[in-house]
């Protein structure tokens, strides 16, 4: 699918790589109104354009909250979320979200879901059609464009969700355990596809996951969070295992000393080994 990804993502990108998609979190405090028990307390994190940041950590450590703050679904009670120089005050098409459960609109067809973003932006019918054709082809749903959402398998729904997120040509893609509910084979395939999308689009990706393997395989940087209140325990630039190699050599990556060393390091930080999948 390599050429089609290149074509598809390239066609939609109107900006040069590495210019937009900068995220800056400074002194974030958030408690969902319960100030005695903040979910996140004094967290700062700077993400450069084009980084693939994986957030790992135990449940309830504030990973998803962090994602919601960047997305503009929530606003911090303290501190600032700045994206490309502007304080985040609402959700927007520049920051696409892929949810854990695909969260597609069941009253729209697969194509309708993908085209909704461009439609809201006032894009004309023909151009919308072109966008959806291109993205659906890219995520392997070219033949399923007119299907109903509930006719898709879990993996296909998540592909559609990715296509919907890409349709607004976002500079930042926020993914909240997007492959958590999928079977292992589908998950691996989608991991490689998202890497390919990232390589071609050079979007900034913030990817929340429970899986240390997944985080190490996908990310150029792994941020380990701890809970109560949520804070950063380890910030690890790792270079990108999967990104440089393609994914055909997944097994050898996973068995490599460098990978295993990092894995041990991350797991020790989380202090919760044995809870990982894979």
């Amino acid at each position, binding site marked *: 699918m390599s050429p089609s990804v290149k074509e598809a993502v390239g066609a939609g990108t109107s900006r040069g790589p590495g210019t937009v998609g900068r995220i800056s979190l400074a002194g974030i405090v958030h408690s969902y109104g319960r100030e005695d028990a903040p979910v996140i307390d004094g967290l700062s994190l700077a993400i450069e354009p084009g980084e693939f940041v994986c957030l790992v950590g135990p449940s309830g450590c504030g990973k998803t909250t962090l994602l919601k703050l960047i*997305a503009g679904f929530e606003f911090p009670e303290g501190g600032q979320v700045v994206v490309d120089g502007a304080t985040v005050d609402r959700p927007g098409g520049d920051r696409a979200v892929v*949810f854990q459960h695909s969260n597609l*609109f069941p*009253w729209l067809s697969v194509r309708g879901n993908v085209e*909704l973003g461009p439609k*809201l932006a006032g894009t004309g019918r023909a151009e919308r059609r072109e966008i959806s054709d291109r993205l659906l082809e890219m995520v392997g749903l070219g033949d399923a464009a007119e299907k109903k959402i*509930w006719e898709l398998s879990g993996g296909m729904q998540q592909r559609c969700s990715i296509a919907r997120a890409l349709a*607004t040509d976002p500079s930042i893609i926020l993914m909240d355990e997007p492959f958590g509910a999928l079977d292992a084979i589908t998950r691996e395939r989608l991991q490689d596809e998202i890497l390919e999308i990232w390589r071609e689009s050079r979007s900034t990706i913030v990817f929340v996951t429970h899986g240390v393997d997944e985080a190490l395989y996908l990310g150029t940087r792994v941020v380990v969070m701890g809970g109560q209140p949520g804070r950063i325990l380890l910030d690890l630039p790792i270079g990108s295992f999967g990104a440089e190699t393609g994914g055909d050599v997944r097994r050898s990556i996973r068995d490599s000393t460098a990978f295993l060393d990092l894995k041990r390091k991350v797991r020790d930080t989380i202090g919760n080994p044995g809870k990982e999948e894979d």
Partner: protein
Amino acid sequence: MSSNSIKIDGKLPGQDTPATVATGATAGPQAFPSPGGPARNDTPAGTGPGRVGQGDLSLGDAEVDGRGGQGIGGREAFEATPPAADAATEPSVKAGPTGTRRKPRVPRWAKQAAVQLSAIAVLIGIWWAIAAAEIWPPLLLPGPQDVFHQLFVITGYHDGIRGYSNYFLQEHLWHSMSRLFQGAGYAILLGVPIGILLAVVTPLRWIFGPAIDFLRNLPPLAYFSLLVIWFGIDDTPKVTLLFLAAFPPIVIATADAVRSVPADRINAVRMLGANRFQSILHVTVPSVLPEVMTGIRLAVGISFTTIVAAETINGVPGIGGMVSDAQRFNATDVVMLGIIVIGICGLAIDGLIRLTDRLLVPWRGH
């Protein structure tokens, strides 16, 4: 074929050892289409399911005879070429142990209809017998034939009299339906937007929420007197009554539905760039459609049950008016006919709403 035999058959292929096959007592791979599947006779003999002993195990019936030839082939398939058989009979293999093993000769709906019609026939028979025995005077309990006779009397001219009270049955019915459609129609037109408004604007909900709950808990007859005082005895108080009966359930269903739209669904459209109005239009409205349709169904049901009450005062023409008028003259057969017609009509309307629901909300349950 009863579900009994289905279950018995269904267990066997999965559990049976080849020994069972050798006895010829059971079937090959469960190669049977699900109930609605293609006719079994189409199955090629080579991959055909073994049917030989089927009859012995289940409720042996005539169907077995037609299949003897296939049975042998099925056995071969089972023993020799499981993969091929799998491929050739994939859908039915999927159906697996729970799938039906034979195609019922009589479709299920036909059986259901037959049973239901017979039940109704029996009921009418009992009614007829009791009426014929004249335990109670015919004035109190007319027989079914009397009620049926009224159907002809009221739908035409009889002894120079036009229908009942100068209106045919269908005219009575039409006037009632027209009131119902007006009352429920206004309730839908006003109730849905007001429900959305109450859900979105919290102070409005504080003010009007309890008022709507109050209204909903009132028996419609309680305020009908007031409506008659205010609006007189023509159609206005009747339509208003039906409106007031239908309005609260729709408002409440809509408001509850709007408030229970998952936050992430709204987030999903807002991250695509939607403003507040767009997110209501593109996500809230379709999201609440299933619950609103349920509310409408409930509301129409309630206002339908209110119709006879609404037409007790000056209700002719109107099916409720006809019933209450007939009651005054002890025309029990007309009353009973009216009841039956109202009941059937209610079922028809409910069916219509459910059909609309299915067309409008195909994603319900997904």
